[in-house]
């Protein structure tokens, strides 16, 4: 019996260590080997760049923020722009959202694009390139809100940029909002 406990204990310890590596490697990769920021000024389409956290991803425009099946598909390809809010460069609120973490077996290049969004502070720069036009934003505020506070998606009269992801990392308990304005 002791021999059985010994081997079973070994198996569980080794399996748990592999499990830790499997879970944390994609997240550690964001810190250890962050992607290189490319120069996208001349590219077509819309790209979001946050230099402080080495985040750069295409923006998928006009994604329905009320339909999880639809925006889940978009989030595999980049950052989603909420349909019903303004496009970057237009008057009104631009609402962008992306994953901070995902299932390890679903890890794509963009599944953890907003993992380090919480490191942003007032004054940090955010750049959006849209069809050759560069828009520079500066962070003005940061908030943690309840998921039910959908008024931030309906608040569109003020010209600003809102970035949203889930927090704490690895959960969907709350939403982290970063507010930024042109300038």
């Amino acid at each position, binding site marked *: 019996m002791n021999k059985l406990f010994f081997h079973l204990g070994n198996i569980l310890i080794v399996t748990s260590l592999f499990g830790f590596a499997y879970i944390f490697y994609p997240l550690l990769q964001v810190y250890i080997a962050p992607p290189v920021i490319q120069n996208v000024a001349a590219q077509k389409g819309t790209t979001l760049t946050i230099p402080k956290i080495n985040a750069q991803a295409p923006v998928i425009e006009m994604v329905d923020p009320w339909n999880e099946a639809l925006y889940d598909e978009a989030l595999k390809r980049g950052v989603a722009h909420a349909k019903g809010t303004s496009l970057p460069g237009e008057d009104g609120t631009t609402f962008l959202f992306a994953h901070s973490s*995902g299932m390890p077996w679903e890890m794509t290049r963009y599944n953890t694009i907003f993992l380090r969004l919480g490191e942003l502070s007032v004054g940090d720069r955010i750049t959006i390139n849209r069809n050759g036009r560069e828009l520079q934003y500066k962070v003005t505020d940061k908030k943690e809100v309840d998921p039910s506070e959908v008024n931030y998606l309906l608040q569109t009269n003020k010209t600003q940029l809102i970035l949203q992801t889930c927090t704490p990392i690895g959960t969907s308990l709350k939403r982290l909002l970063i507010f930024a304005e042109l300038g």
Partner: protein
Amino acid sequence: MNKQNKNIAVLSFSFMWVMSLTFTPHALAEQITITGNGAESVNEVVVTKKNESVTQQTNNADIVNNISNNASTGDNTASFNTNGNTSIQTGDATVVTEVTNTANTSIVEQKNCCDSQQGTVTVSGNGANSHNNANVSSNYTANVRVYQNANIVNDITTYANTGNNRANYNNGDSLIRTGDIKAKTHITSGPINLSYVSVPLYSNKPLSVTIIGNGFGSWNTVNVHDEDDTNIDIENVATVINDLKEHYSTGDNKADYNNGDVAILTGDIASYTSIDNGPINVSVVKVDCACDKDTDKEVPVAPVGGTIPPPSQASPSSGSSVPAITTAAEILAATTLPITGNNWLALALFGNIMMLLLGAYLRLRSGRSPGYNVAL
């Protein structure tokens, strides 16, 4: 000949939004003082304050979209020809119909629940054996009523034809080749009847009570009674009727009584239809104890106008439709900010920790140390 008929211009807006910003009076911010009365005097102050606020928003939207979209390259006749061969070749027909309906958004947000001014009650400097009594009561009732009613009817008829051609009584070979038909119909009804109500609990009522410096044997009492009621009544009623009639034909061609060979080649029909209903009748109510200290925060304003949905991918099948939001998970997703994380990561981490601890425990049970000190 190709004929293309698009009807994207029918965007039916019956969008009404009413925003209510209510500055609610606080229950108590007065100063009550019983002071300097003589010995054995009887003094009483009774303050009763009652406030009631009623915020009511009513939105009604009636939208009827009657759309008829036609595209035809058929209905051709080439008959009674005697010299040479006869050929009818019709062009392709494309019909695209897109309709978006949005209606009724209500936002009620009550602010200024915190009164920065502190109410005070002071009983001081009254003579010996005096009786001093202050009774302060306040009652505040907040009533919020939102009624939204939307009736939407989409009556859409689309017709495309490349057939119904006649090549009869010809000498020589007869050929009828009809074009393809591509049809797309996309109807979106939503958001409809969205309601957001945010009211505070009026629990912050700072009140300072001071009883000081009164004479020997004086009897001093201060009674404070606060009562607050919050009543929220939201009624959303939406009726959406989608009546689609689609008729597409590349056939019904005839080539009779001809001398020579006859060939009739009919084109393909590709039709894609989708109907999205939702979100409809979504209400978010927030009642909390926290007062918003930022009185300069802008009140959220609902967007004006709807949007044309992004082009859907054409499907070779006809009559397919995207299911509307129906499951509990989808309704929950429709009432929350987008879900951009999941709890599996935290659960997986917890599971691994338990596995590690269990493995270490079994190693200890086996009588062989795992090679490190573990306090269990």
